[in-house]
């Protein structure tokens, strides 16, 4: 009976159904887009040398100078295969602030000394070198720079770039490197910031011996971050090391992710509030049109609770149908958009400021789906209580004599 009552006024039902469908569709799409943006930020952050975890010498993060580097990372590296889950990858790095200069330009950079083979499996640089080569072993004092930096310095592969920094003896360390390759990254800021040299040569330049600034780890499953961090902290306590998760290393991204959770929920609420006026209005109209019928039902012996249940059931059927269709439309839209992603190159400058890449791949999260449907169905039922109680409050005589 409730289902048939839903379709008594087809036009009105289709109008409110359309509102619910569009509302749910927008919830799913905006949620998926937000998750896609958040994913992008996290992936960018992790790929831009952060990794899922990093190991440093205790106190390094408070004062990241070269003399606070790990002096014997080999001891830590030897233990990693037994502590990390299968499929994990790691890379040892020297990372210091430096000044890069050539005849035309000079500026601050981050000098990163890496083992090319290991680093290629851990960070963006593995697939990022688009011109030249990534630190071939037979080329001494080679350097790979970002395209934006190369343009800024008006230089190219084959030319020299001088790097200056402070070594472990607190003396100025300076060395000329030959540009052997150019990399492209998601963000121009990354291309301008990082320059890559061979780990061994960085150690020589900075008089580090066998030391290293950090060990970066990428896990096969990002969900394992906290578990592995705890395991490493326990196991490496005697090695005078600190272990940091990407959330600790990228506090801005972490804060933005939390903000997205709140934003998505608020968006759902706003959409629902807008929808709820239509739901209440439609249900009230349906109730007032059928007052005599409710009087008849009461006369036949239906209790007021039965009237309430009847009206609520009609409302829930409408909401469930709208939700279902909205879900189908939303999921289809996200599927279509996620094939190639959404290209936001036109807003590249603004996106870079937020740490986002140019192509966003929307992603539906089960929790968002459950929340969107929960908001519509549960709150929809709540706002339908008023019209339902209104229907039940008429006495049989009042209802039967209604014109």
């Amino acid at each position: 009976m409730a289902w048939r009552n839903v379709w008594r006024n087809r036009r009105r039902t289709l109008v409110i159904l359309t509102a619910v469908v569009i509302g749910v569709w927008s919830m799913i799409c905006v949620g998926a887009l937000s998750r896609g943006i958040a994913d992008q930020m996290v992936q960018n952050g992790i790929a831009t040398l952060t990794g899922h975890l990093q190991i440093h010498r205790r106190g390094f993060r408070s004062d990241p100078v070269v003399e606070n580097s790990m002096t014997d990372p080999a001891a830590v590296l030897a233990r990693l295969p037994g502590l990390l889950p299968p499929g994990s990858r790691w890379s040892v790095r020297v990372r210091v602030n430096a000044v890069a200069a050539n005849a035309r330009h000079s500026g601050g950079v981050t000098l990163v000394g890496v083992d090319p083979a290991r680093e290629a499996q851990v960070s963006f640089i593995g697939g990022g070198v688009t011109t030249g080569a990534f630190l071939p072993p037979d080329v001494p004092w080679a350097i790979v720079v970002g395209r934006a930096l190369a343009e800024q310095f008006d230089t190219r592969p084959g030319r020299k770039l001088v790097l200056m920094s402070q070594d472990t003896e607190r003396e100025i360390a300076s060395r000329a490197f030959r540009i052997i390759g150019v990399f492209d990254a998601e963000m121009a800021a990354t291309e301008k910031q990082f320059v890559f040299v061979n780990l061994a040569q960085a150690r020589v330049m900075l008089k580090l011996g066998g030391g290293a600034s950090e060990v970066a780890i990428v896990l096969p499953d990002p969900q394992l971050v906290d578990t592995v961090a705890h395991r490493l902290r326990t196991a490496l306590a005697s090695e005078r090391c600190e272990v940091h998760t990407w959330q600790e290393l990228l506090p801005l991204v972490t804060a933005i992710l939390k903000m997205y959770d709140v934003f998505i929920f608020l968006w759902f609420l706003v959409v629902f509030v807008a929808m709820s006026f239509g739901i209440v209005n439609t249900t009230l109209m349906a109730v007032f049109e059928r007052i005599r019928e409710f009087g008849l039902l009461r006369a036949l012996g239906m209790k007021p609770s039965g009237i309430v249940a009847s009206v609520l059931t009609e409302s829930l059927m409408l909401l469930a149908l709208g939700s279902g269709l909205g879900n189908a439309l939303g999921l289809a839209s996200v599927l279509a958009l996620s094939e190639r992603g959404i290209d936001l190159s036109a807003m590249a400058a603004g996106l870079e400021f937020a740490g986002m890449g140019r192509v966003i791949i929307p992603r539906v999260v089960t929790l968002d789906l459950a929340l969107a449907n929960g908001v519509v169905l549960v709150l929809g039922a709540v706002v339908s209580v008023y019209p339902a109680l209104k229907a039940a409050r008429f006495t049989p005589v009042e209802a039967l004599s209604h014109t």
Partner: protein
Amino acid sequence: MDLVVCTDIVKRYRQGRLQVTALNGVSLAIERGAFIALAGPSGSGKTTLLNIIGGLDSADEGSVRVEGRELAHLTPAQLAEMRLRKVGFVFQAYNLIPVLSALENVEFVMLLQGVPAAERRDRARAILAEVGLGEMCDRRPAELSGGQQQRVAVARAIVAAPTIVLADEPTANLDSKAGKGLLSLMEEMNARKNVTFVFSTHDRMVMDFARRLVLLHDGRVAEDRVK
């Protein structure tokens, strides 16, 4: 024991700033199996009395006992239960639920009573056949004539074996032929099943069919005679 006993019923309504006394000390006893017409001009209180007997409304003063139970002592839920189990209603109009078929309308009361589906369906089909609508079970009210709708309402009113059927101007919207057919049907149900029928009417034809006539005037019983 009489089925219904009304003693000095008073009922007042407020219409705007005016207070109207619809019933002004009505006393009436209705025996089991009766076929009674409550007659009188508009405003005489017949519908009000019918509503009070059926538990749809309550008296301001006086006593109404149905099968010995004082209605004033019943809660709204108990009154609803009484209407469900003991009382059948036939109204002048808006008798049927528009989205249900004739069969489903007749089944509806049994559904509320908790009768199993198969039994509901069988009893509904049987009673519709009795009232001459066996071939129209699947039709919606909009697809039935006024007379056919009233027959479905009668079928629904008696299918659950009520103690009493209260019919408020059941022939008001029918032509004389349909009205006569309806009254004959109810008379037959009264005779065969011993269901008590109480009509509120100002239709001469209904008054002629009734075996007992109670005339109301200005909220009082002006005449009460068995024919």
